[in-house]
């Protein structure tokens, strides 16, 4: 239960903080949530990882679909030299997930109990 709560809270507060603060504010959110609501280290990592993978992945997917992937076609070609909107969406989700996952893991060690 705590796991879902943590994941949802990280997702939600990351979204809110990015409205006003730089992109890396997701790390602060993912760090703080497991400090307030402690859970296992692995569970914390997965909360952060999944929370941001969902947030950034789904946000970019939703944006890209309503754009008919016009931009994602072009930018994937520019960054990865291959025409793949799904790769761009995946990498977007992955970057957010990695940063938030490790931030949450770090937070869990500040307060958390070991599994």
């Amino acid at each position, binding site marked *: 239960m705590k796991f879902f709560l943590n994941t949802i809270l990280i997702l939600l507060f990351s979204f809110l903080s990015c409205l006003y603060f*730089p*992109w890396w504010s997701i790390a602060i959110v993912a*760090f703080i949530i497991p400090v307030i609501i402690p859970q296992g280290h692995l569970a914390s990592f997965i909360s952060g990882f999944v929370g941001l993978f969902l947030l950034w992945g789904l946000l*970019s997917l939703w944006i890209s679909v*309503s754009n*008919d992937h*016009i*931009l994602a076609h072009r930018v994937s070609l*520019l960054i990865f030299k291959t025409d793949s909107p799904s790769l761009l969406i995946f990498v977007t989700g992955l970057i957010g997930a*990695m940063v938030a996952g490790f931030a949450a893991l770090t937070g869990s060690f500040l307060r958390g109990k070991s599994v």
Partner: protein
Amino acid sequence: MKIIAFILFGAITIFLILFFNSTMILPVPLGKLLSPQHGLWQNAEPQDEDYSAQLSFPQLKGKVKVYFDARLVPHVLADNENDAFFVQGYLHAKFRLWQMEFQTRAAAGRLSEVLGPITIDYDRDKRRLGMVYAAENSLSEIEKDPESLAQCDNYTAGVNAYIKSLNESTLPIEYKLLGYKPEKWTNLKSALFMKYMALELAGYEKDFEMTNAKSVFSSADFNKIYPIVMDSLDPIVPKDSVFPKPAIHLKIPASADSLYYDKKDSTTIVEQKPNPDNGSNNWAVSGKKTKSGSPILCNDPHLGLNLPSIWYEMQIKTPSYNAYGATFPGAPSIIIGFNDSCAWGFTNAMRDVRDYYEMKFKDESRREYWFDSSWQPTTFRIEDIKVKGQSDFLDTVAYTNLGPVMYDKRFSGGRNTNEKNYAVRWKAHDPSNELKMFALLNKAKNYKDYLRAIKYLHTPGQNCVFASKSGDIAIWDQGRFPAKWYRQGDFVMPGTDSNYLWQAMIPQRENPHLINPERGFVSSANQLPADTTYPYYLGGSFPPFRAFEINKRLATMNNITPQDMMKLQTDNYNVFGEMAAPVLIKNMKVDQLSPQEKKYFNILKNWDYRNDTASKGATLFVVTWDSLETKVWKDEFLKTGLELLWPSESTLFDDIQKYPDFRFFDDINTPQIETLSDDVTAAFKNACAVIKNADENGKMEWAKYKDTRVEHLARIDAFSRLHLPIGGGTNTINAANEQHGPSWRMVVSLTPETEAWGIYPGGQSGNPGSRFYDDFVSDWALGKYYQLWVMGDSDANDPKVKWVMSFN
């Protein structure tokens, strides 16, 4: 244990943040770029984006409504003129901000600030040419005219109103990718944009290469390879015209023979050049040749093909005028277009208004230079070129009474060493207010208004075509052109003697022009404006063939419809091919060809002289002619060790007709004497090797071989449109080259209710994440046109209106 883990994972987190916030992978932080709420995803415009908006700005005096049609063309209906310019600035910025800023940065020699050391030489070239100096002079002229100043002030305010509304996530994507932010717009930036166009259109220069050629070739040879007039010429003002007695009497300097014509000095300068193909077609036919009985005006300016396009289409309607056409993001007014009374368009006049003088400084300090038997003081302009990621590059440019010393031992343009000092005299440095011309054309009601307007055009000189509903057609080869003596300014001139300066400007009324001619049409396609009976020396580079073909066609056409004109504008007939291919065929030693080469030879023989997309003959002709030029010129030219320009294709063609034993046919690297036949055969064999390769890769068809593209301004391939299926090319009316060509095709029928068509290879939005970014490109390649909708005051509820922006 917990502490160690905390520190370890904390360090990993911080490392990840720093890594994704760094510029190690791309020039911008990847985390910021991909964050869906900050980065490039914010530029992915929904397919059903709603452009409607209610906006309110204290600067506006009245109301302005902007009605967007389905192609996202804005129809601006304003209560007063100044508000219209504010909104034009706002719309240009909203849809094209990055491009406007980038182009004016380029003009000012400030690209290194955002792109790094790679563009230092580009920037130095612009600084040393005095681009900012020229723009400043132009701005002071604009400021003297209250109307022009108000126009610019309001335009600038509109651009800045939009810039102010931007935040990190709404910045155009190029800023995010290149990692910088827009600056405030200024009137100087609009002036810089006009100089950017002046450089494109009146900056092409070959004095150094011609000086070199003069130093190594005999004068007989020189005149054969760089003749002044082509045989195939059909000038803008027909050949038999009589010109009034010139008001200016020029004195060739007494020392010209020894210090100029016969001087054998060479130079090591390598210039950055605008595309020599920057040309265009325009024509107007009178009502007696059209089906409707009303004149038709056509124009297609040939410029670099870029995304976002140099053009942005719009209509501006105020109580005093109603103009529609193509605009320049970066400058106010409609540039090429029409209003309720008339239409206008431009082609480049190609005149030489940029000359070089060799200066003599007293010493290394460059503080004094020798001029008319005394030492004159120099002024200095210190150019501080900011470079991204490096310390500033300082360049001190000496200014003389002739102009800035562009090349000296600190800058040769390329990698060569150069010990000499060359000052550049460029007409674009002189004060002028070209924006005034466009403002007046937008309001022009008749020929008199048009004539008054174009007098403001000093540089770049243009062939200004005009047609009115009252039935007039006209063309003026307009600009402030220096009156030159024979071959003045074709070579570097001595900078120590005032006799070599431009002695006067040609009076405007003496510029070549044609009004309502008997033949029923006026036209231009960058050919010479007049033949040698014109009393002033014309200089420049004037391609003859497109004009020749256009005039031939227009002369025989009657009952012309706008559709006929569209067909003519997109015609792929290669008149040069018609003249030159038989020369290749006649001189081919067919018995020396291999079976494969014979197969290709038959394709060439059966070519219909059309550069259509699927034509293989066109590819064979073009590659063979190129190869023949190499065969004829390369041996002699390479031997000189100097920077030289190859003679034009029409020159080689004329030489072949006139001199059967032309000295240059011989390959000087072989013991035997080659003839034209030897060269043609060898050239064809070389061409076949190239073509065989293309053939094997399925790229022998002309469009595939030519491979036209519309390239993103920052040369980002992913934001460009590549491999377009379009025919034409150099010397065809449809002048679509590799990355250059008809940048705005327009046909205007001046019937009581104007009917007009147009298209440009781009789209109204500059955002690569918008469906309007490049939506015209495919239709453009296919030669299609869009009918232009001139909106009236009562059309607000017309179904053509898709979005409405209200400004208060």
